[in-house]
């Protein structure tokens, strides 16, 4: 009997719990909702830029602003807009996340996704005018076409081996042939992979037990073969060995896998009240394409297709004539995210690795908290 009644009571409570989201629906008054969801662009300052994220922010109004997985699932969307293989660029819209997540993703892409880059350069000979340390620095910045996951980290006192080091050689001399000069430009294509390891093991302390050809069956080379590293005159030469190791962008920017990774908020152009007659024509003339006149009234088309006009909208929205009519807003939880890879890994792979790193961070923290 008691069990049964308890069960009933629980059921009732369950019923209440499921009914609750419906009760939450009475949402914020429009002016607060605008503050919560949008940044309003003003002439010289943006309003409502902070994100409204404290759970009890709107408690006085009886509105629960706390986070729940269900709410997140309802609001979350991801849409890829552009995937440009040639330029290794990816653009996507990500909707329904907090700025801190978008920013963490951006920071991890720039500074924590590992790549391989030249770290130690051993000069055998350098009679060119570029100083050893300058050339070594330039070499470090050359992106190398290798998947870093195939290699181990080399930290502190670790010995260089075929599992953590890639060796490349560069040996070039400039000479005159008749009236022509050969090898005046030293390009990244001159960097040649040495799968058997260092040719100067006594100096570099790098000895391979086996050839690297097994790890890298397709070989390796710089992603782009026309990067100018140095220039020579007849009689000058450069002979060096470059050792590449795995690293992260936060140690040195040469390990950053992206040229840039950035996001911006989704712009919205809003007509605050109806614009008709001459004013509509004038506004359409001020913002060609973005504002069109339909049935004598001004209408907004797609702001994303008219990016260059958005700053003009901002200016107009502060002018006496247009201020009551037009406003530029940005959605706070809608990010247009762009990743430009250096070409080492495709941007979609980078993003996936960045998310894996972030998930791994969460797990590491959970272990110790």
């Amino acid at each position, binding site marked *: 009997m008691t069990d049964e009644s308890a069960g009933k009571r629980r059921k009732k409570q369950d019923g209440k719990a499921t009914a609750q989201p419906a009760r939450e629906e009475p949402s914020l008054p429009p002016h607060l909702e605008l503050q919560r969801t949008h940044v309003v662009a003003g002439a010289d300052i943006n309003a409502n830029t902070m*994100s409204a*994220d*404290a*759970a*009890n922010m709107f408690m006085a109004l009886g509105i*629960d*602003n*706390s*986070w729940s*997985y269900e709410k*997140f*699932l309802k609001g*979350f*969307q*991801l*849409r*890829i807009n552009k*995937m440009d*293989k040639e330029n290794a660029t990816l653009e*996507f819209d*990500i909707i329904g*996340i*907090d*700025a*801190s*997540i978008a*920013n*963490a993703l951006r*920071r*991890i892409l720039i500074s*924590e996704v590992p790549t391989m880059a030249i770290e130690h350069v051993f000069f055998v000979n350098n009679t060119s005018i570029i100083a050893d340390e300058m050339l070594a620095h330039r070499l470090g910045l050359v992106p190398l076409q290798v*998947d870093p996951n195939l290699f181990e980290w080399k*930290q*502190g006192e670790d010995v260089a081996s075929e599992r953590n080091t890639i060796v490349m050689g560069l040996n070039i001399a400039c000479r005159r042939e008749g009236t022509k000069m050969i090898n005046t430009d030293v390009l990244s294509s001159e960097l040649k992979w040495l799968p058997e390891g260092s040719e100067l093991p006594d100096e570099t302390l790098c000895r391979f037990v086996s050839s690297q050809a097994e790890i890298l069956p397709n070989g390796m080379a710089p992603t782009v073969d026309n990067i100018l590293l140095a220039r020579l005159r007849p009689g000058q030469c450069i002979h060096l060995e470059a050792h590449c190791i795995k690293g*992260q962008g*936060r*140690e*040195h920017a040469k390990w950053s896998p992206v040229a840039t990774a950035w996001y911006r908020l989704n712009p919205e152009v809003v007509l605050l009240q109806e614009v008709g007659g001459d004013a509509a024509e004038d506004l359409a003339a001020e913002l060609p394409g973005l504002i069109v006149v339909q049935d004598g009234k001004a209408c907004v088309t797609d702001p994303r297709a008219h990016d260059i006009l958005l700053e003009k909208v901002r200016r107009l929205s502060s002018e006496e004539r247009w201020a009551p009519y037009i406003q530029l807003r940005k959605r706070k939880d809608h990010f247009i995210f762009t990743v430009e890879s250096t070409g080492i*890994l*495709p941007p*979609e*792979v980078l*993003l*996936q690795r960045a*998310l*894996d790193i*972030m*998930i791994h*961070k*969460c*797990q*590491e*923290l*959970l*272990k*110790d*908290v």
Partner: protein
Amino acid sequence: MNAPDRYEKFVVPEHLLKVEVRKDTKVADAATFVIQREDHTVGNLVRMQLLEDKDIMFAGYKIPHPLQYQLLIKVQTNGSKTPQRAVQSAIGSLEEELRDIREKFLADVARFGSGEESMLA
């Protein structure tokens, strides 16, 4: 010259824990979490997630010194759970959220048709 080694930025020294919990001696239900070798990436993320929890009275983070590679997160709850539990659930929710983002991203990459799908695992 006297700069710390570059690896100091991300290698947690053996005598330190990744996360150390220091209970606040003066305020009830408050604690400071000292996280080694993390920066604004994690600090801001965890702080934002904590603020979205109903039971949190205060959450904030700081990096006391740029050459001491540690992060402090201060948390005060309303007493219905300990700061540890609050941080655990915040990180747990973040992980859940990130897994979902990852899944949706991979699905959309597949929809968009990628030539290098073999690299996506």
